[in-house]
């Protein structure tokens, strides 16, 4: 027994079993080796227990054996594989595994990976039961729609074409076969529609901006970093390969073919099925119970022209009106003649069916024989024609009239259609319809509630005299309507609310004039638009001021001549003269009396005088209450009377703080020299009231002034008003203090309305703040007066309320 050394392809000595041609094992068929048998090193199982080794067949096989096995390791699958689902899932998993191996855009588990549906949804399950495969479109819309549309077309065709029965049958038979074809076709299309592509995302890894190409100017480096396959490390990326508009993500379209073998098998199977005449497991019955019910289209009469005709008497009459039967002498029998005539009239009015009715009746009675071509037939036809003709004549105007306005049937139309006698009404003017006497009586009876209509004609567009003012034009039209159309007079017109009575009256005059002009123009058939437009006070109302209105009101007829010149004295301020390098024309002259613009000045005097009266009253009332205070007041009044100049100078002192806060009154600065002649420096009752407010406001104003950074101008060292004030008040205060040494005296004074201001001064005890307060006080008073006078001023200057409104109107327009 020669030791046959069996070696494998790689030269290794192999154990060679008996089945494969010999036995060669170990060292010369021993269990040992050349060196002999070496026992295993002992390992204590106590310390490290031998692991339980799971053995598999692979532990005992080498590569060769495995290769021999064909690599097909049998595995058990958890899922029963219908329609190759697992394969698809496998492919999917593979793809996702690939995806996972790629660097992820979001580090860590991606939400998609986290959120995995636990089971397939019921919809998917159902679809799969119905034969849907993963990755397929659910419905092949194209094939289906094609089939559907074809079917529809066929239906329509069948419905339209009136085919004979056997033809129909043929048709249906051919139809059936075609249907089969179609079904098969559609199925083919479904199977051939293939799989939906799976898009694999290559996430963006670099930090470049979207669309940025780092190799733009160095294309030779591009290949080295280009992701994706197909381009080797050293291959150059051609210019044409570049995708300029590529987004940051590179899509790689890979078709995951799920079951290539099976689909082809399926199609083969289907083809075979089709050949054999059945489809899958269903076979089309040779003769089915179900028959497609077909309805033939309704038969259309040959004379149908698509329009409905009413068998109205007019229509029938029209039919007859064409041919006029010859004139026939009436039959001798009068009763027959009457009967014929009556019958003809009846038939003409009611229609043909009456004739038929009579005909039917006439079978019984011999009187109606003329209907059937008996005695007097020709006369009847003639009479009928005549009646019809008459009827048409009566109806035609109504019919003609009603035709264009058929959509809106008026009472008159209806009346004419029904053959009613139209009532004599508005078409004629009342003056002609009603006799003159009656008219007068009516007028007197109706009185003012109704206005008399004169004519119904509207004013043509071109004759609108107030075209410039739509509102006024509207009012004018309303006026015309009232005048000409009559009817109930509208008590209050909406737009006149804003107008004054005088304004309204004037406008009414304008309207009358314009209406007259229009009347005249109508009479002479030649209207001169200028004559209307040139009406006094019509056209120039548009942008006119208050004086204008007044003058136009006065000179209603003759237009005032413009331009008009007036001259007044005007006093420029000295500084203006100086700045204009002109010698002041009024230098050294006393202030002139103000030109009386209006009654405003006198009113101003009036207010002053009333103020004085008030003062007197107040002063008298205070005397019994507080002798000391009233005494001071008296002295004050005396002193002010003595030196008005001092007062004036006090008034003129500018108080910037006040102006800064209440700057609205500042425009009256120029009036000051004029006003201060009248303004009484003694505190008025209003002033006293304000003083109370001022007490509260004083601190606020001061702080506000500081905040605004406005300086209250410093007190001039020797100022008469201050001296005056101190001389008046300080003694009082001192006296009171010296008398009581308490503040209670002040309270007493406070209770006295008129002396609050004084109290203030006393409280300040002659300090500088108190003098400021005084100033404020004076300014306040003064400005209040001015404010009042100013408002008066405005009112009066505007002249009258209507002028005011006109100005307002004008202003609003301007805005």
């Amino acid at each position, binding site marked *: 027994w020669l030791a046959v050394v069996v070696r494998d392809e790689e030269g290794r000595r192999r154990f060679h079993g008996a089945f494969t041609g010999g036995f060669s094992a170990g060292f010369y068929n021993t269990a040992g080796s050349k060196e002999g048998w070496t026992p295993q090193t002992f390992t204590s199982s106590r310390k490290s227990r031998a692991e339980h080794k799971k053995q598999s067949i692979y532990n005992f096989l080498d590569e060769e054996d495995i290769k021999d096995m064909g690599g097909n390791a049998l595995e058990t699958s958890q899922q029963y594989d219908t329609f190759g689902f697992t394969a698809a899932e496998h492919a999917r998993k593979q793809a996702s595994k690939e995806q996972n191996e790629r660097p992820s855009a979001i580090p860590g588990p991606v939400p998609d990976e986290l959120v995995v549906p636990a089971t397939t949804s019921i919809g998917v399950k159902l679809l799969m039961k119905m034969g849907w495969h993963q990755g397929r479109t659910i419905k092949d819309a194209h094939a289906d729609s094609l089939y559907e549309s074809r079917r529809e077309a066929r239906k329509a065709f069948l419905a339209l074409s009136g085919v004979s029965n056997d033809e129909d049958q043929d048709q249906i038979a051919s139809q059936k076969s075609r249907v089969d074809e179609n079904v098969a076709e559609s199925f083919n299309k479904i199977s051939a529609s293939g799989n939906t592509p799976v898009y694999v995302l290559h996430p963006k890894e670099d930090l470049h901006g979207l669309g940025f190409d780092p190799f733009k100017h160095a294309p030779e480096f591009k290949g080295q970093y280009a992701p994706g396959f197909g381009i080797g490390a050293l291959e150059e990326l051609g210019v044409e390969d570049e995708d300029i508009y590529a987004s940051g993500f590179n899509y790689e379209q890979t078709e995951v073919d799920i079951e290539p073998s099976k689909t082809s098998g399926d199609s083969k199977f289907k083809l075979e099925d089709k050949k054999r005449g059945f489809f899958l497991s269903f076979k089309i019955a040779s003769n089915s119970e179900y028959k497609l019910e077909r309805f033939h289209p309704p038969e259309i009469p040959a004379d149908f022209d698509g329009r409905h005709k009413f068998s109205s008497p007019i229509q029938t009459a029209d039919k007859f009106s064409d041919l006029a039967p010859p004139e026939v002498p009436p039959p001798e029998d009068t009763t027959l003649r009457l009967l014929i005539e009556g019958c003809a009239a009846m038939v003409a009015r009611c229609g043909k069916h009456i004739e038929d009715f009579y005909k039917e009746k006439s079978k019984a009675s011999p009187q109606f024989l003329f209907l059937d071509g008996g005695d007097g037939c020709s006369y009847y036809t003639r009479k009928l024609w005549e009646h019809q003709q008459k009827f048409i004549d009566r109806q035609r105007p109504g019919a003609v009239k009603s035709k264009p306005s058929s959509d809106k049937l008026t009472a008159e139309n209806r009346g004419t259609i029904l053959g009613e006698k139209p009532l004599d009404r508005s078409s004629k003017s009342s003056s002609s319809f009603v006799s003159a006497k009656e008219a007068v009586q009516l007028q007197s009876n109706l009185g003012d509630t109704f206005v008399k209509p004169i004519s119904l004609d509207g004013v043509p567009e071109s004759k609108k005299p107030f075209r*410039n003012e739509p509102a006024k034009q509207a009012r004018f039209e309303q006026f015309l309507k009232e005048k000409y159309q009559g009817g109930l007079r509208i008590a209050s017109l909406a737009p006149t609310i804003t107008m004054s009575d005088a304004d309204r009256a004037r406008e009414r005059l304008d309207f009358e004039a314009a209406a007259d002009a229009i009347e005249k123009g109508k009479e002479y058939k030649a209207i001169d638009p200028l004559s209307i437009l040139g009406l006094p006070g019509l056209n*120039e109302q*548009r*942008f*006119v*001021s*208050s*004086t*204008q209105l007044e003058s136009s009101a006065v000179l209603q007829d003759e237009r*005032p001549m*413009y*331009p*008009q*010149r*007036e*001259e*007044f*004295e*005007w*006093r*420029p*301020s000295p*500084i*203006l*003269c100086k*700045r*204009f*390098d*002109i*010698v002041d*024309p*009024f230098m050294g002259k006393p202030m002139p009396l103000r*030109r009386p*613009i209006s009654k405003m000045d006198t009113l101003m005097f009036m207010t002053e005088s009333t103020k004085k009266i008030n003062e007197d009253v107040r002063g008298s009332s205070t005397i019994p209450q507080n002798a000391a205070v009233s005494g001071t007041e008296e002295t004050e009044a005396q002193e002010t009377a003595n030196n008005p100049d001092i007062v004036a100078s006090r008034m003129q002192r500018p108080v910037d703080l006040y102006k800064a806060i209440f*700057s*609205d009154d*500042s*425009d009256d*600065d*120029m009036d000051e020299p004029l006003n201060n002649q009248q303004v009484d420096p003694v505190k008025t009752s209003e002033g006293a009231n304000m003083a109370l407010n001022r007490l509260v406001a004083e601190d606020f104003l001061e702080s506000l002034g500081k905040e605004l950074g406005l300086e209250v101008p410093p007190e001039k060292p020797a100022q008469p008003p201050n001296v005056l004030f101190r001389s008046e008040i300080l003694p009082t205060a001192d006296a009171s203090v010296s008398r009581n040494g308490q503040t209670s005296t002040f309270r007493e004074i406070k209770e006295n309305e008129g002396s609050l201001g004084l109290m203030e001064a006393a409280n300040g005890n002659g300090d500088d703040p108190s003098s400021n307060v005084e100033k404020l006080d004076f300014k306040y008073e003064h400005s209040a007066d001015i404010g009042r006078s100013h408002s008066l001023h405005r009112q009066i*200057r*505007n002249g009258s309320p209507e002028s005011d409104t006109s*100005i307002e109107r*004008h*202003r609003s*327009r*301007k805005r």
Partner: protein
Amino acid sequence: SLSLSPKKKGGSPTPEPSARGRTKEMSSAAQQLPRTESRTLSGHEGAVLAVRFNHDGKYCLSCGKDRTVRLWNPHTGAHVKTYKSHGREVRDVNASSDNAKLVSCGGDKQIFYWDVASGKVIRKFRGHNSEVNSVKFNEHNTVVLSAGYDRSVRAFDCRSQSSDPIQTIDTFQDSVMSVNVTNTEIIAGSVDGTVRTFDIRMGRETVDNLGHPVNCISLSNDRNCLLANCLDSTVRLLDKNSGEMLQEYKGHICKSFKMDCCLTNDDAFVIGGSEDGFVFFWELVDAPIVATFRAHSSVVLFPCHQRHLSPNKDLHVDVICRWDHSCLDLKIEIADVCYPY
């Protein structure tokens, strides 16, 4: 009074030409009137409300609804400077005769006194109670006169620190639209239909009632005539001394806008804008329309004529500004022509 024949170069007194010769001359002069757009000054972001030349005619100022005043060189089309400070629309602007100061007014009731070079506001004159419509410097640039919607004309002193008016004229009965100043007079036109002339030297106020709201008044170059643009679509020429109406110019539309009017440098033609975008030229004496041209797609607010000829005395510039409702095309258009006299 105004010589009704066109003034000759240098204002040299020439014998009155025969009527025929005059018409011939007129027609030739009318040929010289600007009719074409020579330049567009664009930059305003809103309607342009006023355009004024400075005294020597080298620059022009514009102001508008975009609350800015802009300084332009109309001869080159250069936009020199923008003056921004107004809080509302700027309605009028005027430059001092020494070109150092500007004064502007508008909807914010204040009058801004600007330094041209630095573009800073030197002073704000307060006193008007509502919008200020027009503003002017006097001859010596010492006083600013303003006309306001508050029915007053106010004079402000440029030399003092005070921002209050030195004089308020409030005899007007409605909004004062325009003010003009001569050596000794203040002339203002108001919506109450009057043109009031305040003679400082005489201490007189002359009221010329025209019967129609006066939009704009403008003086002839010899200061003897007044041109008043009234809201009845009529421009009226008045003799300032007598108050007589010398002529009426019609044909344009002026019904709801404050629109300017002016005379040409030689006082031969009256220029007026129209609400339909046309510019009208009337012959002064006989008042026929000698030329019209469409300058803007919308209202021409401001035909502005170069008052003082530039040194070479041959360049003649018209600036017309416009109000555009749609605010689509906001620009000043300049029409210029060479005057060979």
